């Protein structure tokens, strides 16, 4: 009887210990799944998404600059072919407006539904903003295992500096995987240099083409005859508030602008010398190509010791370039 109880005691002790061990293992080890077991994973995925988001918008800024520059160049090339300015009276939504064609060029590589934007896309390479961003979006899935969807909400163009235009793109991005998702919308204002682009004024009205090259002379006042000679010889542009802006030149808006730029025509070019000489013309680009003339008594013919033959400027310009010695110029009539 006593032995039987001892045996029972051993068995019961074993059972009790086994139950205790079972519960200890269950609760003390990680066999059970805590509610926040995926927190580290989710945190890691969000970190990856944040990093990708920053890369996406940084890449978008660079590609907006590239596709914006190429779109402007394509539009200017087309203007040179059609010899037509953009109509500044059209609203941005009109198919023929500069703003609409810029958007179309940047997004689709076309000026209109049927007309390609010159230089934007070749069979080997498509330089539209849409394709640039699609390339990066596809990498999101291939390398980071997440879906990336973007939307170009709007594209606008403004000018706040003489040799820059600002292309502003409202861009949305949505990233998602099975653990997290992130959405972000940003306005990216990207300055684009106009240097190296054709000047619409020359392409449309001129007898030769000229690309825009900013002068290295940084002065705002105190211009002199040497500066004038450099601008003329190197076909450089300077900022001058009485001149039309870059966008104004595309839209035939030749009114004075704070962001105005101007150059001087090459009056030894055969196309220019073929023009009949007029005493009331000047060699400032927008005045010459637009046939803006002045009273010939206000137009001064600079001395050949300073400038080439028949280089004429309005008297205000003569003063602006500090040519005060009246032996260095004569009235053109």
């Amino acid at each position, binding site marked *: 009887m*006593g*032995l039987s109880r*001892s*045996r029972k*005691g*051993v068995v019961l*002790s*074993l059972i009790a*210990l*086994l139950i205790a*061990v079972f519960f*200890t*293992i269950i609760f*003390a*080890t*990680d066999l059970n799944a805590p509610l926040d077991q995926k927190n580290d994973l989710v945190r*890691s995925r969000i*970190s990856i998404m944040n*990093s*990708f988001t920053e*890369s*996406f918008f940084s*890449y978008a800024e*660079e*590609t907006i*600059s*590239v596709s914006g*520059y*190429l779109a402007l160049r394509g539009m200017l090339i087309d203007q040179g072919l059609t010899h037509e300015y953009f109509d500044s009276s059209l609203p941005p939504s009109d198919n023929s407006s500069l703003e609409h064609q810029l958007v179309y060029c940047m997004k689709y590589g076309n000026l209109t539904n049927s007309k390609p934007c010159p230089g934007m896309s070749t069979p080997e390479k498509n*330089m539209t903003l849409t394709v*640039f961003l699609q*390339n*990066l979006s596809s*990498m999101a899935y291939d*390398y*980071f295992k997440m879906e990336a969807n973007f939307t170009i909400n709007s594209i606008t163009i403004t000018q706040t500096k003489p040799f820059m235009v600002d292309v502003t793109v409202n861009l949305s991005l949505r990233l998602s995987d099975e653990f997290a998702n992130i959405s972000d919308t940003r306005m990216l204002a990207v300055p684009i*240099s106009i240097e*190296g682009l054709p000047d619409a004024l020359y392409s449309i009205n001129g007898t030769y083409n000229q690309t825009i090259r900013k002068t290295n002379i940084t002065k705002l006042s105190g211009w002199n005859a040497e500066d004038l000679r450099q601008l003329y010889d190197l076909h450089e542009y300077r900022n001058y508030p009485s001149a039309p802006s870059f966008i104004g030149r595309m839209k035939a808006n030749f009114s004075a602008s704070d962001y105005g730029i101007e150059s001087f025509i090459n009056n030894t070019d055969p196309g220019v010398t073929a023009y009949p000489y007029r005493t009331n013309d000047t060699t400032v680009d927008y005045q010459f190509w637009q046939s803006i003339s002045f009273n010939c008594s206000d137009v001064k013919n600079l001395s050949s010791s300073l400038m080439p033959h028949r280089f004429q400027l309005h008297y205000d310009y003569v003063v602006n370039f500090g040519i005060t010695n009246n032996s260095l110029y004569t009235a053109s009539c």
Partner: protein
Amino acid sequence: MDKRGAYFFVIDAFIASSIIIICLMIIFTSKNSRPDSGPALLMIEEFANYLQDSKLNEVQGSYVINLSNASSITSLDNTILEQAVIFYYYDSSNITRISQLIDTTTRSASSQQRSMIIYLNSTLVYNRSLSTPSESDLMITTRRVVFKRINETFVYGPLIMEVKLWV
């Protein structure tokens, strides 16, 4: 009879204490066998950020200065990663130059006791292996999107930079 009862109680006590000890060993050994990835993960992320954010003029050593003097590096405002991408773009076969750039500019930024390799566009551009990855208990990988504006009309990339670190 009493002796046999005492015998069973002693065995009972031994069995119980054995089970407790074995269970405790299982519990504690199972917890300690998992390598902690936290510090290595932090380190690799910080290293990738360092490559991505540090400008050459902040980290320049004799190697960078020599390349700059030789006009192989045209702007010290480039980050280490941007410069590596430029080298890769202009001459993807000259891996030594990229490797030396990374090596000389990151010596103080990473533990020399850890093995690390860097791929750029799936090309191995940096290798600091102290052991083979198969010998490692823990290997961590991080990736970054990289690109570089080459001129007004061209952006090189996007490419993937992949850093693998193991201990």
